[in-house]
Protein backbone atom coordinates (compact mmCIF):
# COMPACT_ATOMS: atom_id res chain seq x y z
CA UNK A 1 0.00 0.00 0.00
CA UNK A 2 2.82 2.38 0.69
CA UNK A 3 4.86 3.68 -2.20
CA UNK A 4 7.85 1.91 -3.59
CA UNK A 5 9.78 4.99 -4.50
CA UNK A 6 10.27 7.97 -2.25
CA UNK A 7 12.23 11.13 -2.67
CA UNK A 8 11.93 12.11 0.98
CA UNK A 9 13.25 9.27 3.10
CA UNK A 10 14.92 11.26 5.84
CA UNK A 11 14.11 14.48 7.69
CA UNK A 12 17.50 15.81 6.65
CA UNK A 13 16.20 15.97 3.10
CA UNK A 14 13.69 18.64 4.05
CA UNK A 15 14.88 21.80 2.34
CA UNK A 16 16.39 24.26 4.78
CA UNK A 17 15.28 27.18 2.70
CA UNK A 18 12.14 28.87 4.05
CA UNK A 19 9.42 30.43 1.92
CA UNK A 20 6.95 31.17 4.69
CA UNK A 21 8.84 33.46 6.99
CA UNK A 22 8.29 34.08 10.70
CA UNK A 23 6.37 36.96 12.16
CA UNK A 24 2.88 35.94 11.07
CA UNK A 25 -0.04 36.83 13.31
CA UNK A 26 -1.36 33.25 13.26
CA UNK A 27 -1.80 31.46 16.59
CA UNK A 28 1.15 29.79 18.26
CA UNK A 29 1.17 26.11 17.40
CA UNK A 30 -0.99 26.46 14.27
CA UNK A 31 -1.02 23.14 12.45
CA UNK A 32 -2.19 24.81 9.25
CA UNK A 33 0.75 27.18 9.19
CA UNK A 34 3.11 24.29 9.84
CA UNK A 35 1.73 22.40 6.83
CA UNK A 36 1.93 25.46 4.63
CA UNK A 37 5.53 26.07 5.66
CA UNK A 38 6.46 22.49 4.74
CA UNK A 39 4.50 22.66 1.48
CA UNK A 40 6.18 25.89 0.46
CA UNK A 41 9.58 24.26 0.85
CA UNK A 42 8.65 22.09 -2.12
CA UNK A 43 6.53 24.63 -3.99
CA UNK A 44 9.27 27.24 -3.88
CA UNK A 45 8.73 30.95 -4.30
CA UNK A 46 7.59 31.16 -7.92
CA UNK A 47 4.05 31.03 -6.66
CA UNK A 48 0.99 33.20 -6.35
CA UNK A 49 -1.20 32.25 -3.42
CA UNK A 50 -4.85 32.97 -4.09
CA UNK A 51 -6.42 33.17 -0.67
CA UNK A 52 -9.99 32.65 0.47
CA UNK A 53 -11.33 34.33 3.61
CA UNK A 54 -10.18 32.35 6.62
CA UNK A 55 -7.46 32.30 9.27
CA UNK A 56 -4.78 32.56 6.57
CA UNK A 57 -6.18 35.93 5.54
CA UNK A 58 -4.05 37.23 8.39
CA UNK A 59 -0.85 36.00 6.76
CA UNK A 60 -0.59 39.07 4.56
CA UNK A 61 -1.71 41.83 6.85
CA UNK A 62 -0.66 45.29 5.72
CA UNK A 63 2.19 46.19 5.81
CA UNK A 64 3.67 42.73 6.44
CA UNK A 65 3.74 39.51 4.49
CA UNK A 66 5.66 36.37 5.45
CA UNK A 67 5.80 35.17 1.84
CA UNK A 68 8.55 35.55 -0.73
CA UNK A 69 5.86 34.69 -3.27
CA UNK A 70 2.85 36.65 -4.51
CA UNK A 71 -0.53 36.82 -2.83
CA UNK A 72 -4.04 37.72 -3.88
CA UNK A 73 -6.83 37.86 -1.34
CA UNK A 74 -10.15 37.17 -3.04
CA UNK A 75 -13.34 36.24 -1.19
CA UNK A 76 -14.54 33.29 0.86
CA UNK A 77 -16.49 31.76 -2.00
CA UNK A 78 -14.37 32.24 -5.07
CA UNK A 79 -10.64 31.71 -4.56
CA UNK A 80 -10.54 28.93 -7.21
CA UNK A 81 -12.14 31.36 -9.66
CA UNK A 82 -9.42 33.85 -8.75
CA UNK A 83 -6.91 31.12 -9.52
CA UNK A 84 -8.65 30.62 -12.86
CA UNK A 85 -8.30 34.30 -13.73
CA UNK A 86 -4.64 34.44 -12.72
CA UNK A 87 -3.72 31.20 -14.51
CA UNK A 88 -5.56 32.18 -17.68
CA UNK A 89 -4.03 35.65 -17.69
CA UNK A 90 -0.53 34.24 -17.20
CA UNK A 91 -1.09 31.81 -20.08
CA UNK A 92 -2.43 34.53 -22.35
CA UNK A 93 0.34 36.99 -21.51
CA UNK A 94 3.02 34.35 -22.07
CA UNK A 95 1.43 33.24 -25.34
CA UNK A 96 1.26 36.83 -26.54
CA UNK A 97 4.88 37.46 -25.60
CA UNK A 98 4.04 40.02 -22.94
CA UNK A 99 5.37 37.92 -20.07
CA UNK A 100 8.63 35.96 -20.35
CA UNK A 101 8.19 32.25 -19.71
CA UNK A 102 10.65 32.39 -16.82
CA UNK A 103 8.35 34.86 -15.04
CA UNK A 104 5.61 32.24 -14.81
CA UNK A 105 4.32 31.27 -11.37
CA UNK A 106 2.40 28.35 -9.92
CA UNK A 107 -1.09 29.18 -8.77
CA UNK A 108 -1.98 27.90 -5.31
CA UNK A 109 -5.36 28.37 -3.66
CA UNK A 110 -5.41 28.61 0.13
CA UNK A 111 -8.72 27.93 1.78
CA UNK A 112 -9.94 26.88 5.20
CA UNK A 113 -12.51 24.17 5.66
CA UNK A 114 -15.36 26.66 5.86
CA UNK A 115 -14.56 27.95 2.41
CA UNK A 116 -13.49 24.59 0.97
CA UNK A 117 -16.34 22.38 2.17
CA UNK A 118 -19.25 24.72 1.54
CA UNK A 119 -19.04 28.23 0.24
CA UNK A 120 -16.36 27.76 -2.43
CA UNK A 121 -17.59 24.33 -3.50
CA UNK A 122 -19.21 25.74 -6.64
CA UNK A 123 -16.10 27.57 -7.79
CA UNK A 124 -13.87 24.63 -6.82
CA UNK A 125 -16.02 22.17 -8.72
CA UNK A 126 -15.95 24.48 -11.72
CA UNK A 127 -12.18 24.82 -11.59
CA UNK A 128 -11.62 21.06 -11.36
CA UNK A 129 -14.08 20.41 -14.19
CA UNK A 130 -12.19 22.90 -16.35
CA UNK A 131 -8.95 21.04 -15.49
CA UNK A 132 -7.43 24.26 -14.22
CA UNK A 133 -3.72 23.78 -13.64
CA UNK A 134 -3.47 24.76 -10.00
CA UNK A 135 -2.85 23.57 -6.47
CA UNK A 136 -5.55 23.74 -3.84
CA UNK A 137 -4.41 23.61 -0.24
CA UNK A 138 -7.15 23.34 2.36
CA UNK A 139 -6.09 23.87 5.95
CA UNK A 140 -8.81 21.93 7.69
CA UNK A 141 -9.29 22.84 11.33
CA UNK A 142 -12.81 21.46 11.35
CA UNK A 143 -14.54 24.71 12.28
CA UNK A 144 -14.96 28.33 11.30
CA UNK A 145 -11.80 29.24 13.17
CA UNK A 146 -11.24 32.84 12.24
CA UNK A 147 -14.65 33.87 13.54
CA UNK A 148 -14.10 32.18 16.86
CA UNK A 149 -14.69 28.47 16.20
CA UNK A 150 -18.22 27.70 15.06
CA UNK A 151 -19.65 24.55 13.48
CA UNK A 152 -18.52 24.02 9.89
CA UNK A 153 -19.34 21.17 7.52
CA UNK A 154 -15.93 19.76 8.42
CA UNK A 155 -16.68 19.59 12.15
CA UNK A 156 -16.69 15.93 13.21
CA UNK A 157 -19.40 14.19 15.16
CA UNK A 158 -19.09 14.85 18.87
CA UNK A 159 -17.04 18.04 18.67
CA UNK A 160 -18.11 21.04 20.69
CA UNK A 161 -17.99 24.40 18.93
CA UNK A 162 -19.50 27.78 19.72
CA UNK A 163 -22.56 26.86 17.65
CA UNK A 164 -22.67 23.17 18.49
CA UNK A 165 -22.43 23.39 22.26
CA UNK A 166 -22.73 20.47 24.59
CA UNK A 167 -26.14 21.16 26.09
CA UNK A 168 -28.85 19.36 27.98
CA UNK A 169 -30.89 18.85 24.85
CA UNK A 170 -27.84 17.87 22.85
CA UNK A 171 -25.05 16.50 25.02
CA UNK A 172 -22.97 15.25 22.08
CA UNK A 173 -22.13 18.61 20.50
CA UNK A 174 -21.98 18.32 16.71
CA UNK A 175 -24.33 15.58 15.53
CA UNK A 176 -23.42 15.75 11.85
CA UNK A 177 -20.79 13.57 10.22
CA UNK A 178 -17.81 15.40 8.77
CA UNK A 179 -18.41 15.98 5.08
CA UNK A 180 -16.22 13.80 2.89
CA UNK A 181 -14.67 16.48 0.73
CA UNK A 182 -11.98 14.07 -0.43
CA UNK A 183 -14.58 11.93 -2.16
CA UNK A 184 -16.41 14.95 -3.53
CA UNK A 185 -13.14 16.08 -5.06
CA UNK A 186 -12.31 12.56 -6.23
CA UNK A 187 -15.64 12.28 -8.05
CA UNK A 188 -14.30 15.07 -10.28
CA UNK A 189 -11.32 12.84 -11.22
CA UNK A 190 -8.53 15.35 -10.65
CA UNK A 191 -5.10 14.01 -11.62
CA UNK A 192 -3.78 14.39 -8.10
CA UNK A 193 -5.44 14.43 -4.71
CA UNK A 194 -3.97 13.84 -1.25
CA UNK A 195 -4.42 14.29 2.47
CA UNK A 196 -1.48 15.50 4.54
CA UNK A 197 -0.56 16.04 8.16
CA UNK A 198 2.12 18.33 9.57
CA UNK A 199 3.26 15.56 11.92
CA UNK A 200 4.14 13.45 8.88
CA UNK A 201 6.45 15.92 7.18
CA UNK A 202 8.12 13.43 4.86
CA UNK A 203 4.76 12.18 3.63
CA UNK A 204 3.70 15.79 3.10
CA UNK A 205 6.84 16.80 1.24
CA UNK A 206 6.68 13.64 -0.85
CA UNK A 207 3.13 14.34 -1.93
CA UNK A 208 3.80 17.91 -2.96
CA UNK A 209 6.84 16.70 -4.89
CA UNK A 210 4.85 13.94 -6.61
CA UNK A 211 1.99 16.27 -7.48
CA UNK A 212 4.33 18.53 -9.43
CA UNK A 213 4.40 15.96 -12.21
CA UNK A 214 0.70 16.39 -12.89
CA UNK A 215 -0.90 19.13 -14.92
CA UNK A 216 -4.37 20.08 -13.77
CA UNK A 217 -6.03 20.37 -10.38
CA UNK A 218 -3.84 19.14 -7.52
CA UNK A 219 -5.74 19.05 -4.28
CA UNK A 220 -4.40 18.83 -0.75
CA UNK A 221 -6.45 18.40 2.36
CA UNK A 222 -4.25 19.41 5.28
CA UNK A 223 -4.92 18.45 8.88
CA UNK A 224 -4.73 21.75 10.73
CA UNK A 225 -4.54 20.90 14.42
CA UNK A 226 -5.88 24.02 16.10
CA UNK A 227 -4.91 24.75 19.73
CA UNK A 228 -7.22 27.76 19.87
CA UNK A 229 -10.30 26.07 18.46
CA UNK A 230 -9.84 22.56 19.76
CA UNK A 231 -8.83 23.71 23.21
CA UNK A 232 -5.46 22.12 23.83
CA UNK A 233 -2.11 23.58 24.77
CA UNK A 234 -0.17 24.63 21.65
CA UNK A 235 2.65 22.31 22.70
CA UNK A 236 0.42 19.35 21.84
CA UNK A 237 -0.10 20.20 18.17
CA UNK A 238 2.32 17.46 17.08
CA UNK A 239 0.65 14.89 19.36
CA UNK A 240 -2.86 15.76 18.24
CA UNK A 241 -1.75 15.59 14.62
CA UNK A 242 0.00 12.27 15.14
CA UNK A 243 -2.85 10.66 17.05
CA UNK A 244 -5.44 11.77 14.51
CA UNK A 245 -3.55 9.67 11.98
CA UNK A 246 -2.71 6.78 14.29
CA UNK A 247 -6.27 6.32 15.52
CA UNK A 248 -7.48 6.25 11.93
CA UNK A 249 -9.53 9.44 11.97
CA UNK A 250 -7.26 11.25 9.52
CA UNK A 251 -6.19 8.73 6.88
CA UNK A 252 -3.09 9.69 4.95
CA UNK A 253 -3.81 8.89 1.34
CA UNK A 254 -3.55 10.06 -2.18
CA UNK A 255 -5.53 9.48 -5.34
CA UNK A 256 -3.81 9.61 -8.71
CA UNK A 257 -6.33 9.76 -11.51
CA UNK A 258 -8.91 8.66 -8.98
CA UNK A 259 -7.10 5.56 -7.67
CA UNK A 260 -6.78 5.79 -3.92
CA UNK A 261 -3.66 4.60 -2.13
CA UNK A 262 -3.16 4.91 1.61
CA UNK A 263 0.34 6.18 2.15
CA UNK A 264 0.53 5.27 5.82
CA UNK A 265 -1.04 2.35 7.65
CA UNK A 266 -1.98 3.56 11.11
CA UNK A 267 -1.89 1.56 14.31
CA UNK A 268 -5.62 2.19 14.72
CA UNK A 269 -5.14 3.03 18.35
CA UNK A 270 -8.32 3.77 20.34
CA UNK A 271 -9.97 7.03 19.34
CA UNK A 272 -10.07 8.04 23.00
CA UNK A 273 -6.30 8.62 22.85
CA UNK A 274 -6.90 11.32 20.30
CA UNK A 275 -10.13 12.78 21.66
CA UNK A 276 -8.96 13.09 25.27
CA UNK A 277 -6.22 15.52 24.32
CA UNK A 278 -8.72 18.12 23.20
CA UNK A 279 -11.12 20.32 25.12
CA UNK A 280 -13.63 20.19 22.28
CA UNK A 281 -14.28 16.52 23.10
CA UNK A 282 -13.99 16.75 26.89
CA UNK A 283 -17.77 16.60 27.34
CA UNK A 284 -17.67 13.06 25.93
CA UNK A 285 -15.66 12.04 29.01
CA UNK A 286 -16.77 14.41 31.78
CA UNK A 287 -18.79 14.57 33.93
CA UNK A 288 -20.00 11.24 32.58
CA UNK A 289 -18.60 9.15 29.78
CA UNK A 290 -20.88 9.32 26.73
CA UNK A 291 -20.37 5.72 25.74
CA UNK A 292 -22.77 5.72 22.81
CA UNK A 293 -21.15 8.72 21.22
CA UNK A 294 -17.66 7.29 21.64
CA UNK A 295 -18.78 3.94 20.28
CA UNK A 296 -20.32 5.69 17.31
CA UNK A 297 -17.08 7.51 16.52
CA UNK A 298 -15.05 4.33 16.90
CA UNK A 299 -17.47 2.38 14.71
CA UNK A 300 -17.28 5.02 11.98
CA UNK A 301 -13.49 4.81 11.99
CA UNK A 302 -13.58 1.02 11.97
CA UNK A 303 -16.03 0.91 9.10
CA UNK A 304 -13.73 3.12 7.06
CA UNK A 305 -10.69 0.93 7.60
CA UNK A 306 -12.72 -2.24 7.06
CA UNK A 307 -13.54 -0.93 3.62
CA UNK A 308 -9.87 -0.17 3.07
CA UNK A 309 -8.98 -3.73 4.11
CA UNK A 310 -11.53 -5.12 1.70
CA UNK A 311 -9.81 -3.27 -1.04
CA UNK A 312 -12.55 -0.76 -1.67
CA UNK A 313 -11.16 2.32 -3.22
CA UNK A 314 -11.73 4.42 -0.11
Amino acid sequence: MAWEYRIFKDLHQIPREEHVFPGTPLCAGCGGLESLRLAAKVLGNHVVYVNAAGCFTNLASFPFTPLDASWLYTTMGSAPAGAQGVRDALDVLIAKGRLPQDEDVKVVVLGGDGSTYDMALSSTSGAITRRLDFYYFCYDNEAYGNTGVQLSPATPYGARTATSPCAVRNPVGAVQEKKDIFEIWRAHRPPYLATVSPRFPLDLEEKFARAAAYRGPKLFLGFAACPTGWLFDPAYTPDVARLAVECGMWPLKEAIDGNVVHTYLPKLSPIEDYLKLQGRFRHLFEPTVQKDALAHIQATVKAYWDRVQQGDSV
Partner: protein
Amino acid sequence: MIAVRFHGRGGQGAKTASRILGTAAFSEGFTAQDSPIYGSERRGAPVSAFTRIAKEPIRERGIITRPVLVVVADVSLIGDPAARMLEGIDERTAVFVNSPLTREELRAQTSLPGRLTTLDLTTIAVREFGKRGAISALLGAVAGRLVGLRPESIDRAVAQELADLGVDASLIRRNQTAARHCYEAVPLVPVEKDVRGAPGPTSLRAPTYDPPTRGTASITAGPNSAIRSMSGWRTFRPVLRPDLCNGCWLCFANCPEGAITIKPDGKPAVYYPHCKGCLDCVEVCPTDAMTVERETEATKTT
Protein backbone atom coordinates in the same frame (compact mmCIF):
# COMPACT_ATOMS: atom_id res chain seq x y z
CA MET B 1 -16.26 58.84 35.03
CA ILE B 2 -13.56 56.26 35.55
CA ALA B 3 -12.04 55.02 32.31
CA VAL B 4 -9.99 51.83 32.59
CA ARG B 5 -8.02 50.36 29.75
CA PHE B 6 -6.78 46.76 29.76
CA HIS B 7 -3.93 45.50 27.64
CA GLY B 8 -3.27 41.83 27.17
CA ARG B 9 -2.35 39.28 24.60
CA GLY B 10 -4.96 37.06 23.02
CA GLY B 11 -5.71 34.27 25.48
CA GLN B 12 -4.67 36.16 28.61
CA GLY B 13 -8.14 37.38 29.42
CA ALA B 14 -8.05 41.15 29.00
CA LYS B 15 -11.55 41.14 27.51
CA THR B 16 -12.98 39.05 30.34
CA ALA B 17 -11.18 41.22 32.88
CA SER B 18 -12.94 44.28 31.46
CA ARG B 19 -16.25 42.43 31.81
CA ILE B 20 -15.55 41.40 35.38
CA LEU B 21 -14.87 45.02 36.22
CA GLY B 22 -17.97 46.17 34.34
CA THR B 23 -20.22 43.60 35.97
CA ALA B 24 -18.85 44.34 39.44
CA ALA B 25 -19.37 48.08 39.02
CA PHE B 26 -22.88 47.57 37.66
CA SER B 27 -23.75 45.37 40.62
CA GLU B 28 -22.73 48.21 42.94
CA GLY B 29 -25.19 50.52 41.27
CA PHE B 30 -22.93 52.30 38.84
CA THR B 31 -23.53 52.78 35.17
CA ALA B 32 -20.93 50.71 33.36
CA GLN B 33 -19.83 50.00 29.84
CA ASP B 34 -17.26 47.47 28.69
CA SER B 35 -15.97 46.51 25.27
CA PRO B 36 -13.00 44.82 23.65
CA ILE B 37 -11.11 45.59 20.46
CA TYR B 38 -9.00 43.11 18.59
CA GLY B 39 -8.08 42.18 15.08
CA SER B 40 -8.75 38.76 13.69
CA GLU B 41 -5.43 37.79 15.21
CA ARG B 42 -5.69 35.42 18.11
CA ARG B 43 -3.55 33.93 20.83
CA GLY B 44 -0.54 36.05 21.55
CA ALA B 45 -1.52 39.16 19.64
CA PRO B 46 -2.22 42.41 21.48
CA VAL B 47 -5.78 42.90 22.68
CA SER B 48 -7.28 45.94 24.35
CA ALA B 49 -10.44 46.15 26.39
CA PHE B 50 -12.20 49.05 28.01
CA THR B 51 -14.39 49.58 31.04
CA ARG B 52 -16.13 52.85 31.83
CA ILE B 53 -17.72 53.37 35.23
CA ALA B 54 -19.84 56.36 36.17
CA LYS B 55 -22.71 57.51 38.33
CA GLU B 56 -24.36 59.27 35.38
CA PRO B 57 -25.21 57.96 31.87
CA ILE B 58 -22.07 57.31 29.82
CA ARG B 59 -21.90 59.29 26.61
CA GLU B 60 -18.82 57.71 25.16
CA ARG B 61 -18.16 54.77 22.90
CA GLY B 62 -15.28 52.71 21.64
CA ILE B 63 -11.65 53.04 22.55
CA ILE B 64 -10.44 54.92 25.61
CA THR B 65 -7.72 57.32 24.57
CA ARG B 66 -7.28 59.03 27.95
CA PRO B 67 -7.54 56.37 30.67
CA VAL B 68 -7.29 57.07 34.40
CA LEU B 69 -6.13 53.48 34.96
CA VAL B 70 -4.24 51.17 32.63
CA VAL B 71 -3.99 47.46 33.44
CA VAL B 72 -1.21 45.62 31.64
CA ALA B 73 -1.32 41.82 31.60
CA ASP B 74 2.08 41.31 30.08
CA VAL B 75 5.21 43.40 30.36
CA SER B 76 6.13 42.78 26.72
CA LEU B 77 3.17 44.94 25.70
CA ILE B 78 4.91 48.05 26.96
CA GLY B 79 7.39 48.02 24.11
CA ASP B 80 5.05 46.65 21.46
CA PRO B 81 3.92 49.49 19.19
CA ALA B 82 0.98 47.40 17.98
CA ALA B 83 -0.41 47.38 21.52
CA ARG B 84 -0.48 51.22 21.80
CA MET B 85 -0.20 50.74 25.51
CA LEU B 86 1.42 54.12 26.11
CA GLU B 87 -1.30 56.10 24.34
CA GLY B 88 -2.81 58.82 26.49
CA ILE B 89 -0.71 58.01 29.56
CA ASP B 90 0.89 60.77 31.60
CA GLU B 91 2.28 61.15 35.10
CA ARG B 92 -1.22 61.19 36.65
CA THR B 93 -2.37 57.94 35.08
CA ALA B 94 -2.43 54.91 37.33
CA VAL B 95 -0.64 52.00 35.62
CA PHE B 96 -0.73 48.43 36.86
CA VAL B 97 1.70 45.95 35.32
CA ASN B 98 1.70 42.19 35.88
CA SER B 99 5.33 41.77 36.82
CA PRO B 100 7.53 40.35 39.58
CA LEU B 101 9.46 43.62 39.61
CA THR B 102 8.78 46.36 42.12
CA ARG B 103 7.44 49.65 40.83
CA GLU B 104 10.89 51.21 41.21
CA GLU B 105 12.58 48.38 39.29
CA LEU B 106 9.98 48.54 36.58
CA ARG B 107 10.29 52.30 36.32
CA ALA B 108 14.05 51.94 35.99
CA GLN B 109 13.74 49.29 33.28
CA THR B 110 10.94 50.69 31.21
CA SER B 111 10.81 54.42 32.03
CA LEU B 112 7.03 54.09 32.10
CA PRO B 113 5.29 57.29 33.18
CA GLY B 114 2.37 57.31 35.58
CA ARG B 115 1.62 56.06 39.06
CA LEU B 116 3.04 52.56 38.77
CA THR B 117 2.01 49.52 40.73
CA THR B 118 2.90 45.88 40.15
CA LEU B 119 2.08 42.36 41.23
CA ASP B 120 3.29 39.04 39.83
CA LEU B 121 -0.03 37.61 38.66
CA THR B 122 1.58 34.96 36.47
CA THR B 123 3.25 33.26 39.41
CA ILE B 124 0.01 33.38 41.36
CA ALA B 125 -1.85 31.89 38.40
CA VAL B 126 0.66 29.13 37.77
CA ARG B 127 0.60 28.29 41.47
CA GLU B 128 -3.18 28.28 41.65
CA PHE B 129 -4.08 26.73 38.28
CA GLY B 130 -0.96 24.72 37.61
CA LYS B 131 -0.60 25.73 33.96
CA ARG B 132 -0.44 28.70 31.68
CA GLY B 133 -3.73 30.27 30.81
CA ALA B 134 -6.02 33.22 31.29
CA ILE B 135 -5.53 35.60 34.21
CA SER B 136 -8.75 37.51 33.63
CA ALA B 137 -10.05 37.15 37.18
CA LEU B 138 -6.77 38.39 38.59
CA LEU B 139 -6.65 41.40 36.31
CA GLY B 140 -10.27 42.18 37.06
CA ALA B 141 -9.67 41.95 40.78
CA VAL B 142 -6.66 44.25 40.66
CA ALA B 143 -8.57 46.80 38.61
CA GLY B 144 -11.57 46.55 40.92
CA ARG B 145 -9.40 47.18 43.95
CA LEU B 146 -7.66 50.17 42.38
CA VAL B 147 -10.93 51.86 41.39
CA GLY B 148 -12.45 51.15 44.81
CA LEU B 149 -15.00 48.40 44.19
CA ARG B 150 -15.92 45.97 46.96
CA PRO B 151 -14.36 42.48 47.14
CA GLU B 152 -17.78 40.76 47.24
CA SER B 153 -18.84 42.33 43.97
CA ILE B 154 -15.57 41.28 42.31
CA ASP B 155 -16.09 37.79 43.66
CA ARG B 156 -19.59 37.54 42.19
CA ALA B 157 -18.52 39.09 38.89
CA VAL B 158 -15.69 36.58 38.52
CA ALA B 159 -18.13 33.74 39.05
CA GLN B 160 -20.67 35.17 36.64
CA GLU B 161 -18.28 36.01 33.82
CA LEU B 162 -16.30 32.78 33.99
CA ALA B 163 -19.49 30.72 34.16
CA ASP B 164 -20.64 32.50 31.00
CA LEU B 165 -17.48 31.25 29.34
CA GLY B 166 -18.23 27.69 30.34
CA VAL B 167 -15.53 27.46 33.00
CA ASP B 168 -16.31 24.65 35.42
CA ALA B 169 -17.19 25.28 39.06
CA SER B 170 -13.95 24.12 40.62
CA LEU B 171 -11.81 26.29 38.35
CA ILE B 172 -14.10 29.23 39.06
CA ARG B 173 -13.53 28.73 42.78
CA ARG B 174 -9.77 28.65 42.28
CA ASN B 175 -10.05 31.82 40.22
CA GLN B 176 -12.02 33.48 42.99
CA THR B 177 -9.40 32.51 45.53
CA ALA B 178 -6.58 33.85 43.39
CA ALA B 179 -8.55 36.97 42.57
CA ARG B 180 -9.21 37.69 46.26
CA HIS B 181 -5.52 37.24 46.96
CA CYS B 182 -4.60 39.72 44.21
CA TYR B 183 -7.30 42.14 45.39
CA GLU B 184 -5.64 42.29 48.78
CA ALA B 185 -2.03 42.14 47.65
CA VAL B 186 -1.91 44.79 44.96
CA PRO B 187 -0.09 47.93 46.18
CA LEU B 188 -2.48 50.87 45.99
CA VAL B 189 -1.98 53.98 43.91
CA PRO B 190 -4.48 56.83 43.57
CA VAL B 191 -6.85 56.62 40.61
CA GLU B 192 -8.41 59.90 39.49
CA LYS B 193 -12.15 59.88 39.37
CA ASP B 194 -12.52 62.04 36.33
CA VAL B 195 -11.27 62.07 32.82
CA ARG B 196 -9.14 65.13 32.42
CA GLY B 197 -9.98 68.17 30.31
CA ALA B 198 -10.49 68.53 26.62
CA PRO B 199 -7.82 67.27 24.27
CA GLY B 200 -5.64 69.69 22.36
CA PRO B 201 -6.54 70.78 18.86
CA THR B 202 -6.03 68.34 16.01
CA SER B 203 -5.48 69.48 12.47
CA LEU B 204 -7.33 67.53 9.81
CA ARG B 205 -5.27 66.30 6.90
CA ALA B 206 -7.00 64.09 4.36
CA PRO B 207 -4.62 62.16 2.10
CA THR B 208 -4.41 63.16 -1.55
CA TYR B 209 -4.33 60.83 -4.53
CA ASP B 210 -1.42 58.42 -4.58
CA PRO B 211 -0.47 56.38 -7.64
CA PRO B 212 -2.05 52.92 -7.71
CA THR B 213 1.25 51.33 -6.69
CA ARG B 214 0.58 52.85 -3.26
CA GLY B 215 -3.10 53.55 -3.39
CA THR B 216 -4.12 49.91 -2.98
CA ALA B 217 -3.49 47.58 -0.05
CA SER B 218 -0.49 45.80 -1.52
CA ILE B 219 2.93 44.83 -0.23
CA THR B 220 5.96 44.71 -2.50
CA ALA B 221 8.65 44.67 0.19
CA GLY B 222 7.89 41.09 1.27
CA PRO B 223 8.87 38.86 2.85
CA ASN B 224 9.06 41.41 5.65
CA SER B 225 7.08 39.92 8.53
CA ALA B 226 10.27 38.61 10.09
CA ILE B 227 11.16 42.10 11.30
CA ARG B 228 8.38 41.75 13.87
CA SER B 229 9.43 40.30 17.19
CA MET B 230 7.20 37.53 18.48
CA SER B 231 9.01 37.34 21.82
CA GLY B 232 6.16 38.98 23.67
CA TRP B 233 3.87 36.07 22.81
CA ARG B 234 5.84 33.64 24.94
CA THR B 235 5.14 32.64 28.52
CA PHE B 236 7.70 29.86 28.25
CA ARG B 237 10.61 29.41 25.92
CA PRO B 238 12.29 26.33 24.48
CA VAL B 239 15.97 26.04 25.35
CA LEU B 240 18.22 23.57 23.54
CA ARG B 241 20.77 21.53 25.40
CA PRO B 242 23.23 20.85 22.61
CA ASP B 243 24.87 17.98 24.48
CA LEU B 244 21.60 16.02 24.35
CA CYS B 245 20.70 16.88 20.75
CA ASN B 246 21.01 14.00 18.28
CA GLY B 247 20.56 16.24 15.24
CA CYS B 248 17.36 14.53 14.08
CA TRP B 249 15.73 17.78 12.81
CA LEU B 250 12.30 16.88 14.18
CA CYS B 251 12.14 20.26 15.91
CA PHE B 252 13.13 22.03 12.69
CA ALA B 253 10.49 20.12 10.75
CA ASN B 254 7.75 20.74 13.31
CA CYS B 255 8.23 24.41 14.12
CA PRO B 256 5.18 26.17 12.66
CA GLU B 257 6.99 29.48 12.63
CA GLY B 258 10.25 28.56 10.98
CA ALA B 259 11.95 29.95 14.08
CA ILE B 260 14.36 27.04 14.25
CA THR B 261 17.29 27.15 11.89
CA ILE B 262 19.97 24.55 11.22
CA LYS B 263 23.49 25.59 11.99
CA PRO B 264 26.46 24.59 9.81
CA ASP B 265 27.17 21.73 12.20
CA GLY B 266 23.72 20.30 11.46
CA LYS B 267 22.33 21.13 14.89
CA PRO B 268 19.22 23.28 15.37
CA ALA B 269 19.11 26.71 16.96
CA VAL B 270 16.06 28.63 18.16
CA TYR B 271 15.93 32.22 16.99
CA TYR B 272 13.99 33.75 19.84
CA PRO B 273 12.56 36.89 18.23
CA HIS B 274 10.69 34.54 15.88
CA CYS B 275 9.57 32.06 18.53
CA LYS B 276 5.98 32.34 19.78
CA GLY B 277 6.63 29.80 22.51
CA CYS B 278 4.26 27.08 21.30
CA LEU B 279 6.76 24.47 22.53
CA ASP B 280 5.97 22.03 19.71
CA CYS B 281 9.74 21.51 19.40
CA VAL B 282 9.91 20.42 23.03
CA GLU B 283 7.08 17.97 22.51
CA VAL B 284 8.61 16.29 19.46
CA CYS B 285 12.19 16.12 20.72
CA PRO B 286 13.05 12.42 21.13
CA THR B 287 16.05 13.01 23.42
CA ASP B 288 14.63 15.72 25.68
CA ALA B 289 17.27 18.09 24.41
CA MET B 290 14.66 20.81 24.11
CA THR B 291 13.81 22.05 27.56
CA VAL B 292 11.36 24.62 28.86
CA GLU B 293 12.14 27.78 30.74
CA ARG B 294 9.69 30.31 32.10
CA GLU B 295 9.98 33.72 30.49
CA THR B 296 11.07 36.60 32.66
CA GLU B 297 11.17 40.29 31.95
CA ALA B 298 14.86 40.04 31.23
CA THR B 299 14.63 37.19 28.75
CA LYS B 300 11.51 38.42 27.01
CA THR B 301 13.25 41.35 25.50
CA THR B 302 15.45 39.02 23.45
